[in-house]
């Protein structure tokens, strides 16, 4: 702004103008470096602008540490909640079944089978006609109650019924449900004992 000096009244005589030395360059550089470090420090403690990181978490690693475990316990809890919401009305929250309404799941050979293919098919397509469960014949019909559940939810339900009320069989994975869902697409309900037995175990 050199031309501005034109408007400044002349210095009164007797006071010599002070020396005009340039500000030291090092000072500016130091300021910039400090500002940069401050910004880095700030970002480091606020998740690097990561949209997933909110207070009280300070970065993505910390957020990762506090994810609840997705282990078997979590799967069972979820399976129980879904079971009681979807299947419990007919099969009972205790899995004992209800006379004239639905056969038991506790101790049922279809639930405890080593292979889970048949078991996974039942809620996906439904089941009708005469079937034997624990030595008793049931001739009712179950709609495709599991078709609307996500793979993970149905896997959780099946894992839950295989591991509760005294049942002791291994878990069912979402991948198994997914494969079965692809296999049964568009198929009618399984009709009767023969059809159920005809499915691979």
């Amino acid at each position, binding site marked *: 702004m050199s031309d501005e000096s034109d408007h400044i009244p002349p210095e009164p005589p007797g006071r010599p103008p002070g020396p005009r030395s340039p500000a030291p360059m090092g000072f500016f550089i130091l300021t910039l470096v400090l500002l940069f470090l401050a910004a880095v420090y700030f970002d480091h403690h606020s998740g690097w602008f990561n949209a997933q990181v*909110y207070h009280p978490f300070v970065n993505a690693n910390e957020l990762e540490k506090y994810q*609840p475990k997705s282990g078997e316990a979590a799967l069972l809890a979820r399976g129980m909640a879904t079971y009681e*919401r979807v299947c419990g009305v007919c099969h009972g929250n205790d899995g004992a079944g209800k006379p004239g309404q639905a056969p038991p799941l506790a101790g049922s050979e279809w639930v405890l089978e080593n292979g889970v293919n048949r078991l996974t098919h039942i809620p996906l397509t439904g089941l009708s006609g005469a079937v034997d469960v624990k030595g008793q014949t049931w001739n009712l019909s179950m709609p495709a109650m599991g078709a609307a559940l996500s793979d993970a939810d149905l896997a959780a339900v099946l894992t839950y019924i295989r591991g509760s009320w005294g049942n002791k069989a291994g878990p069912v994975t979402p991948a198994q449900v997914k494969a079965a869902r692809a296999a049964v697409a568009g198929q009618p309900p399984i009709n009767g004992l023969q059809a159920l037995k005809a499915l691979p175990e």
Partner: protein
Amino acid sequence: MKNGFRIFLAALVALGFSWCAFVLAPVLQLGAEKQTTVLNSSDLYPVQRGDFAAQGLQVYRANGCAACHTAQVQQDGVGCDVVLTGMGTNQPADFKAFMKSLCELPDLQNCSDSLSKNLAAWNGALPKILLHGAREADAGKLADKLSAAGLKSEVRIVATGPDIARDWGLRHSVAEDFLWDDPVQLGSVRIGPDLANVGARFPDARWQLLHLYAPQVVVKGSTMPPFRYLFKMEKTRGEPAPDALKLPRELAPPSGYEVVPTDQARELAAYLLSLRAEVPLHDAPFTPPAPAPARPNKP
């Protein structure tokens, strides 16, 4: 004007800089926000509202509810609870001795005080919270020690803070919660409670409608203004309408009449019921209370 160009340049830089900070940066950060999945599940979140509830957002806005209500839960901290769920083959008496030995381990010295305090008054009932609000590392160490001894335990993630203590939610609100809101009704004044999770607190549409018509009837001493103009009085035709309000005597309409909600009130109630921020997400983790509450059917 002499320095016109320079002034223009300076203004451009100043405005451009704030535009970058207040418009560009947030868009880069959150502009691509989309549905996520509920933690440990493949369910999508948030579910889009039906037309009816979506219209309710406009009623909410038009009536200035956000002047007294926020819809954002804040969280101050996060901690781990270690819950003992099963004894395996151990006896409670052995267990106490075992815990005593644990408390002396240098590994667990951070939490030995609260451990021994929690155990002092324990009568043997399960599940038992052994540690509350501990750091993740301490909780993990304790859980490992317990499982090595054949005990069953569970580490639960809990969000903490005044809002959560008031039962306004289970976790902080995140950007995804507002994905379908246009305009977003965050609110900034809390004359009434936070509504981010009000659909889970009061899942009954009839409660919501009655509260809108006469807040003082459902909440003694409520200072919320009644929104009676969202309702209309009608002649009862035969059977009372299914959603006619059940009002106390002093507010009841003359006999032969009933108070029914207008469409606006129904939309608003549907919107309020859709406000449920109760599932854990990757960016707002917590362990849902088990067994997860069955969702009441929405009207």
